[in-house]
């Protein structure tokens, strides 16, 4: 009923087991955060130190960005969880439909003709 909707709960309904699961999940999130920081540092280092040549650095940092994208989406934003079928569908559609648009805006501006 309506008034229940704005009332705080005295406790959580989670069982021991669920709490354990959620704590484990939390640990995974922190680990993936550490991993993301690592990827970021890697990307910055790759460019700053010019250790790797430019031709390779570009695809490399793009790849790192894509990995981070998946980590953020699937872990931080829970796309990997169940009940996320439709959200997955919308984000994937967004990415898929963005691809030709991006390519066209970068390459098909009539400067070089393909």
């Amino acid at each position, binding site marked *: 009923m309506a008034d229940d*909707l704005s009332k705080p709960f005295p406790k959580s309904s989670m069982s021991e087991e669920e709490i354990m699961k959620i704590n484990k999940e939390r640990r995974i999130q922190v680990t993936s955060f550490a991993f993301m920081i690592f990827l970021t540092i890697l990307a910055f280092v790759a460019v700053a130190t010019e250790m790797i040549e430019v031709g390779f650095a570009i695809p490399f940092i793009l790849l790192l960005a894509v990995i981070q994208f998946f980590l953020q989406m699937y872990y931080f934003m829970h796309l990997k969880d169940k009940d996320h079928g439709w959200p997955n569908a*919308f984000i994937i559609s967004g990415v898929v*439909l963005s691809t030709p*648009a991006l390519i*066209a805006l970068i390459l098909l*501006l*009539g400067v*070089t*003709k*393909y």
Partner: protein
Amino acid sequence: MSTAAATKDKSVLWDWLTTVDHKKLAILYLVAGGLFFIKAGLMAVFMRIQLMTAENDFLTGQTFNELITMHGTIMLFLAATPLIFAFMNFVIPLQIGARDVAFPFVNALGFWIFFFGGLLLSVSWFFGGGPDAGWTAYVPLSSGEYADLGLDFYVLGLQVSGIGTLVSGINFIVTIINMRAPGMTMMRMPLFCWTGLVISILIVFAFTPLAAGLALLMLDRLFGGQFFIPDMGGNAVLWQHIFWIFGHPEVYILVLPAFGIISEVVPAFSRKRLFGYTAMVFATLVIAFLGFMVWVHHMFTVGLGPITNSVFAIATMGIAVPTGIKIFNWLFTMWGGKITFNTAMLCASSFVPTFVLGGVTGVMLAMTPVDYLYHDTYFVVAHFHYIIIGGIVLGLLAGLYYWYPKMFGHKLNEKLGMLMFWLFYIGFHMTFFIQHILGLIGMPRRVYTYLEGQGMETMNLISSIGSFVMGAGILVLLINVVYSAFKAERITVNDPWDARTLEWATPTPIPEYNFAQTPQVRSLDPLFYEKMHGDGTIKPAEPMEDIHMPNGSILPFIIGLGLFTWGFGMVMINMENPIIPPAVVIGVGFVLTFGSMFIRSIKEDHGYHIPVEQVKKIEKEVS
């Protein structure tokens, strides 16, 4: 907890301004879209008068450019879209067995933002004239160098109304996914719901790039952005890409709901189930996907290169396949059916051949080498009018005659309906068929006049006369609306057409909660199924209980007003001597918009309940 009394004793005006009821919003959409339709239709008639004879001086070139721009822009964004939303709003919740949409507040918000955006575009007439760069607003024609204030109104008006369309689209998606009645699986949804879902998805993915493009053009015009000026490192083709990345999906946003309407009307009046339901759903999805992969066919003559053109030409032709599937399914639905040719069915069935003609010219245009001949001639004009009028408008008319009794409690007069149909249909072909040939002999589009002795006089005259006949058809429709409101007999039965889907299981007039008990759906075409296998009534899925309803709110109206004010303030930046500093107007708009959003966010509103005794009383009254 407040009760139903909260809705009582409001004035009529206040009720309409604050309503969040999807059925009332549908009527608001219908009226607003209808008015914009008439306005843009009159512009078209003016243009046809100008083109009736060679070297006519009824309009100046400048006025003609403004009319052609406003006609196209209004028809697509402010007439066709809201008219489609009118039917989607009214019918979809009923067809899926829901009490309302997922976000009633957002639904109202979508309407008011759209409405005020349209208003913003329209007030351009009072500030030095409408936009004049075509509905496509190609740069550099639309840049600060060549276009005046009218184009600022175009950019901001469309930006605002686009936001409204976008939030409505999101609302429809969530409604269809989350609010279906028990047993109403995805593959039992009527095709109108399917197309509604698919175009809402298209809106989410197409109106967002448009918003980006309009933002670029706005920044270019108001703040000196350098996106499109080659000397400054910019690129004019950029705009064309962004516009058509939105633009081609947009044409499918408009035509797919018409497909949906046809797929409702044709089975209802052929007394047969829709042929190839699954194939229809699949074809809709394929069209939606391909619709995003073909936009370069509007830019064949830009010179992007042969590989690019070929890829997009092939993709474009590919769309003809799922479209063909649909055409055959409609034909097979009618095949062997017991067909009733009333006005709705006339519109729906004549949609099929007209649309085919538009599709055929579409495939012709998709052949890149010859498109160099067709492009920017009247051939293109003929092509898209066959699709837009012969497809979308006929679909909308069919829907209007079909759902009118549910919406307004009486049918439209059939005799006047027939008259309207034949005037409209003959007038339409007269206007546009001949334009194919005009285009082929070389008459360019978007010109305000032509010379004598080039063999264009007769055909233009015929085309103009056709447009008057078409206008007469619309006039008859308006007369019909008024006439039927007074003379037609009231409908009291649920199901005046002996139709098949769930909306016809509700009482007429529909109580504000739609279904006293959420229905239990057992099959595709649920009402028809119950007529065949049950007692003709839909079984309830829950006991009679208090019904939860959302509260009305004035905030959507105020947010719309706020965006209007903001947009107007932005336009004022380009005005010569604004009376008030633009920053003040922009600020007021911001405060109105974000202030209302803030209030909405911090004030929890859980709606109210209609007590079960009252539901029982209402149910007794209507049955």
